[in-house]
């Protein structure tokens, strides 16, 4: 297995005064190029912290992140993030939100006209070109998240990081957006790492599912391969035995072996 993104012995300890909390303990994971990996776990298990460490927004206490064998420890467009609550800048239009990143990343390599075309290309990919002059407050929640995805894609990241990207959406919009992300992954072959707490979403989208134990000191409990052929169809999978088996496995892990005690 060729490591494209490698998480090497990551520990994370939060210190507040004299109190220390170990959030993550000895996280090791390698991800291949073009792979779609989901990280699933109960809330509070530190999966968002892990994503922030990969994105470079938070530092790991020990260990590090290697991207193409080079250590990365500060944020950058090579690991673009789609944030949970879209995080579009409300004073910019849809177009300008995407353009902001494009202007920085391709400042030297693309001309003005090329950058404009590239922004429109990415808005087209997520079917948002029609709303390019609207402000985020004027489009729906699903559309905002589409723009968030376009903004991340437009930076041509080596790894696309999705932080519970569909968490704030209603079920129908979520399904629609999951299909879009699947189609984009199929078309562009991005390496994607997604944080989620939705079992069906993880099984439907991922090549591998990384299951985290409960915090504090969360570890990787189990990694499950999802041997479903792509392209996957939501309706066909509902009756596929492989799908059901994978789903069963994740559910067992989350609700039997690592039940979230506080939630009960």
């Amino acid at each position, binding site marked *: 297995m060729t490591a494209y993104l490698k998480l090497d012995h990551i520990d994370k300890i939060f210190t507040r005064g004299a109190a220390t909390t170990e959030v993550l303990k000895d996280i090791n994971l390698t991800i291949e190029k073009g792979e779609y990996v989901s990280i699933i776990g109960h809330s509070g298990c530190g999966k968002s912290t892990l994503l922030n460490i990969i994105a470079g*927004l938070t530092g790991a206490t020990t260990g590090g992140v290697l991207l193409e064998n080079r250590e990365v420890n500060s944020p950058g467009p090579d690991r673009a993030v789609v944030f949970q609550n879209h995080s579009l800048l409300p004073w910019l239009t849809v177009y300008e939100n995407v353009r902001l990143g494009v202007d920085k990343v391709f400042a030297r390599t693309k001309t003005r006209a090329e950058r404009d075309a590239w922004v429109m290309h990415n808005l087209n990919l997520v079917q948002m070109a029609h709303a390019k002059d609207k402000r985020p407050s004027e489009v729906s929640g699903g559309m905002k998240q589409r723009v968030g995805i376009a903004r991340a894609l437009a930076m041509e990241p080596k790894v696309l990081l999705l932080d519970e990207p569909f968490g704030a959406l209603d079920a129908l919009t979520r399904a629609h957006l999951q299909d879009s992300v699947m189609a984009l992954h199929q078309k562009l072959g991005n390496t994607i790492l997604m944080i989620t707490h939705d079992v069906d979403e993880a099984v439907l989208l991922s090549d591998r599912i990384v299951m985290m134990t409960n915090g504090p000191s969360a570890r990787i409990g189990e990694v499950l391969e999802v041997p479903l052929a792509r392209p996957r169809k939501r309706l066909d999978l509902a009756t596929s035995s492989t799908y059901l088996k994978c789903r069963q496995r994740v559910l067992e892990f989350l609700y039997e072996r690592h039940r979230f005690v506080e939630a009960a």
Partner: protein
Amino acid sequence: MNMPATKMDIEAATPAGTAAPVVAMTPKRPPRSETYARMARETAVRVIPPLVVIALLTLVWELVCRRAGSALPPPSRVFKDTKELILDPFFDHGGIDKGLFWHLSASLQRVALGYSLSAIAGIALGVLVGQSVWAMRGLDPLFQVLRTIPPLAWLPLSLAAFRDGQPSAIFVIFITSIWPIIINTAVGIRNIPQDYRNVAAVVQLNPLEFFSKIMIPAAAPYIFTGLRIGIGLSWLAIVAAEMLIGGVGIGFFIWDAWNSSHISEIILALFYVGIIGFVLDRLIAGLGKIVTRGTAPN
């Protein structure tokens, strides 16, 4: 702050363009006369109550002050005494014997200068205090004490420092209006959501770009709250300061009228001061509305 403003210009231009097709769809539109009637009604609802109140108050004032020996003149007397000042605000007989326009414009110029300086310095200091924990720890206690000093208490000190009335008055304006601008800007900067900072980090904006593209637009609503309080305070301070420094200016005009026992002129000047203070406040509020459109979180 320029960037959003220019964008607004573009935006402001579009509604006119999009409005045209709507006009073409006449069938659903109510008849023109009806629209005018509705507009007239809406205006009446807003304008009539204050007019009635003003009329009543004037009447009471007239009745109270009309009797012989009252200390203050009734409105009819005020109007009779100040008719010339109202009708010809532009005369200039040299010295301080000028029309009200010249007094007001001198005051407004001082405010414009002092307030512009305090807006620039206030926003800069506010950004510093909002952004840096150490600057906040060091400067905030100082600001909290200094901002409670009444404007006029600064005047003798600034007269001693500048040895001239004009810069002293401007300094008083500056020092009076800067505190709310600093404090509100700092709060605005401190309240920039972590999300926006994360976006800036992923996109790798440099500090200058972060300042102009994230910080200022995100903090703009707070900044304008500070600017609005600041313009009110500076208009409060100028009248008091001018009474003491003399020369041309509405404050000294009032003081001069008092010394010459022209009570009617004082009342007229107060009207002007009130109306201009109101206009200044609306001006900044309106500017804030245009600039911060779209910055509210969604």
